[in-house]
Structure formats: C-alpha cells, structure tokens
C-alpha cells in the first residue's frame, strides 16, 4: 500500500503542471496536500476550491487531484465521476501509463467510456495539389457516434467527412471548398463533431493553409509582330480644292462671257465676278487649310481583325489560367499550439 501511494505521488509530481501556473491558493494547497499523500485533506481542499471562481486550468487541476485522490483511497465511483469532469474539461489530458498506477489508468478509462468526447484531433502536415491530393485528419471518439468533420475559416465552411466511428478514426480533405475552388490561404478550424443520441461533443484544432504561387499567363494587349494602325490619317495638303474651284469657275464664267449676247448690256457683271471671287477664295482657303483627318478603311479593317485575334487569344488564356488556378499547390500544417484551443 505504501509503495502504491509512492508511485501515485511520483506520477502526480512528474505529470502535474508547475505550481506557478495555478492561480487559486486553495487549489495550490490541495495539490500540496496530495503531494504529501494527505489524500483526505487534498479531497477536502479540492471540494472547497470547486466552490470558488476558478480558471479552466484550476478546474482541471482540482478534478485531477480529486480523481487521483479518490483512486488512491479506493473510492472508485467518486474517482470515475471526477475523471468524467476532467475528460469534459480536457479531453486530451490522460494519465501517463508509464507513471501512474494501472488502477488509476483503469478508472480514467472507465470514466472515458461513460462520456462522449472527441479527442486528439490532429492534422498531418501535407503538401499536395488541391483536388488531387489530400490531408489526413485524425481523431478519437470515446464512444460509438456519428462524427462529422468540418473545415471552417476564411469565409469557407466545408463538410469533408461524416462517418460512424468508435475509437481512432481518420478523415481526409482534398483542399477544395464547397464550390470546388482551392481553399484560400489562411488559418482554418477543423471541427470534429460527434453525435450520439442527445449527446454531442466537438473537438477542434487549427490548421494553416498556404498556397503555392500560381504561374498564370498575362492577358494580351497586342500580338507580337503586329501593331495597331492609325484609323485616321491627315491627307497631305494639296491644291486640289483650288484647282476645282478654278476649273468650275473658269468653265462657267468663261461660258457665260462666251454666251453673252453682245447686243445687250449686263453692266459691270458684278454677279459673276462676286460669286467667282467667293468660289476662288473658298478653293484657296480649303487648299491652305490643314486637311481634316479621314478614316483609313484598310487600317480599320486590319485593327478589327487584330482585336478579334487578341480577344480570341485572351479567351484561351483565361481558360488556361482557370485551369492553372485549379492546380494550385496547398501546404497544410497544424497551427502552433499557442493558437489552438
């Protein structure tokens, strides 16, 4: 009996967290009483501590002291009850089989079998192409239950697995969202929810998703070797307008003079003179004036064909880029323990 108590004490001493992590003096005294093998006092102090406002870590300590102390005093029912509370608070915390007595381990296992919890949720590190590879999500369910595994984060929620399990189980995620797109980079929560009747328990863990760079093709604004041609051109200045004005004016004015009835008098011929003068001035001004740009049909047609070629090529590039974006490499790693709950 004395030897067993010594083993229990050693186990608790080696597995217990440092005292400075405990905030409550009562919890600290209960731990000290247990360490001195004063189990009744340890139980009494632990019970008193439960009436206080305790942190989560202190509550874990209290139920652990209670479970071990009741176990040391052969109070199996009360030890199992304390371990059940401990399991709910810290599902992943369990006695070290190398350092505690088989009896206490047995009592803990008995408590574990009475409650539904998801334990030891972990994600393997993996690097794979989204949709083609997968990452393994490992967990344990204490009792037979339907376990649903979800990945939540970055505006994404995807159910990756749902199965009836007992004990250790594995789910896989191919890295795709519900819409089939590769998951965006960032931190995600992996939630494994076990449901058995009206009992439900969710075990979380966090992962980080990093995306490899995607080598997409740039869209084209031009085709190599082809350049857009100006669609208008300013014709060179020429004397055609003046020439036409001289021709028309000369023909009509000359004909009018030639046809004039010499037996009649048309006076100073102001009409033909003034209109001819205006026509010639107009022709001169239009010749000197910088010509207006005019469209170049051949260049317009060339540019239209070139634009069609670029649009067609960009459609192909867009399709290729969509395919490449689907081929993104994901690196999934468990998040550091400090950020995991």
């Amino acid at each position: 009996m004395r030897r067993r108590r010594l083993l229990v004490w050693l186990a608790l001493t080696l597995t217990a967290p440092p005292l400075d992590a405990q905030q409550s003096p009562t919890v600290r005294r209960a731990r000290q009483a247990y360490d001195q093998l004063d189990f009744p006092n340890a139980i009494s102090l632990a019970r008193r501590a439960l009436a206080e406002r305790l942190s989560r870590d202190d509550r874990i300590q209290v139920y652990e002291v209670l479970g071990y102390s009741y176990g040391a005093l052969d109070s199996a029912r009360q030890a199992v009850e304390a371990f059940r509370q401990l399991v709910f608070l810290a599902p992943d915390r369990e006695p070290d089989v190398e350092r505690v007595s088989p009896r206490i381990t047995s009592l803990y296992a008995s408590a574990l079998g009475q409650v539904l919890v998801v334990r030891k949720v972990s994600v393997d590190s993996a690097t794979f192409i989204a949709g083609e590879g997968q990452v393994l999500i490992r967990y344990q369910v204490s009792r037979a239950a339907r376990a649903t595994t979800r990945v939540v984060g970055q505006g994404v929620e995807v159910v990756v697995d749902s199965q009836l399990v007992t004990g250790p189980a594995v789910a896989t995620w191919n890295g795709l969202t519900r819409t089939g797109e590769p998951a965006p980079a960032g931190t995600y929560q992996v939630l494994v929810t076990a449901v058995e009747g009206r009992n439900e328990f969710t075990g979380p863990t966090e992962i980080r998703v990093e995306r490899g760079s995607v080598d997409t093709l740039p869209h084209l604004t031009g085709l190599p070797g082809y350049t857009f041609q100006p669609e208008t051109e300013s014709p060179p200045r020429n004397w055609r307008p003046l020439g036409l004005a001289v021709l028309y004016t000369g023909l009509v004015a000359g004909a009018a003079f030639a046809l004039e009835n010499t037996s009649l008098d048309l006076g100073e011929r102001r009409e033909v003179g003034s209109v001819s003068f205006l026509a010639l001035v107009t022709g001169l001004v239009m010749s000197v004036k910088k010509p207006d740009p005019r469209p170049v049909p051949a260049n317009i047609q060339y540019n239209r064909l070139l634009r069609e070629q670029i649009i067609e090529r960009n459609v192909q590039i867009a399709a290729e880029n969509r395919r490449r974006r689907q081929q993104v490499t994901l690196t999934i790693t468990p998040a550091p323990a400090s950020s995991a709950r």
Partner: protein
Amino acid sequence: MTRRGIVLAAALVGLAAPRATPAQTVRFGLQGVGLTYSEIDQGRRAEGGGLGGTLSVRWRRFLLDASGMGARLDPKGDGGGTSFDLLQGDVRLSYAFAPSFAVEIGGGRRAIDPEFATQDVGVIRLGLLSEIALNQISAVWARGAYLVGSRFSGGGSADLAVELGMGVGVGTANGRFRGRADFEFQRIDREVAGAAVPLQMAVGKLGVELGF
C-alpha cells in the same frame, strides 16, 4: 460658244468630279439676291436686288431643288423704262448617273409687275449638273441647261435659250449649316415676227442654309 462647246464644257466638269457629293436629306435656306436684267438692246438694262429662298430634298440619286426670288429692279441704261418687280420660281429635278454628275430637268416661271414692263417668261429646262466636294465642308457646283419651249407674255419664240449656273458652299462637317453663293446666267434669243428682241439676265445670290 456653240452647243457643242457647252456639251464639251459639261463633260470636262463631269470628268473632273471623282467623288460623290455628301448625301443630305433636306435643306432650306434664305438668300439675298442681286441681279442685272437687259432686253432688246444695250439701252434697256435694269438692276436691283431682293430676297430668295431655296428648298432641296435629296433622296438616293435624286435631288429635287426648288427656289424662288423676288426683286425690285430699276432702269439703269440709256433707254429709259420703268421700275418693276420680278418674281421668279424654278424647280429642278436631277438624277445622278455618275459620281458628281447628274442630268437635270425642270421648269421656271418669271412674272413681272407691272405686267408689260418687260416679259413674263415660262421655260422648261433640260441640262446637266455637276457638284463636287472640295473637302468635307465645302463644295462647288456648276450647271448648264438648254431652255426649251420658252413662252412669253408678249408672244414670240426663242431658238437659242440657255442657262448657266455655278455656286460654292461652305458649312459645318455635320451638314447642319451651310453658307452658299450662286450665280445664274440666262440668255434667251427671243424673236417676234422675225425681229430679234433678246432677253438676258445675270443673278448673284448669297445666303445660308439649314440642313436636316
């Protein structure tokens, strides 16, 4: 110049017209008119001015052109005479059978007030029209016509009756507004009972047009 010469001149104008004139559906305009009118001999000449208006409708290859003018003329020659009012209306319908080159048919009527100050004249014209753009905003045109079936209030007939015209227009690129100047010359060798009583008139017009 003979008839052959007129035809040759019109052909030259047509050959010099390489481009089609810009299409415009409807134009109307207002013009100031100055004219010189003479008849019978060198002593009978009158000059004056007035207002005129134009309306033209272009549809495909057809162009319907109507114009009118009213003017007050005063005697300027040595032969005396009285002042009179002249009211003239002309209608021309042309069909472009080639770029910038069209055949033209039409009629005209000139009324004089007081009635016998000179002759009222009615004509039917057959002719050619050539219009060519100098650039996007300006154009020149020329026309020549032979006047057939001339009728006069004082009777008589005319073996030779011709009409010449030319003009220039400058407007906005969209064709909405245009200023234009026109010259028209008309010679009618009227004979009454074997006696020559010719008519001759030169008209200058300057105005603006609105196009739609």
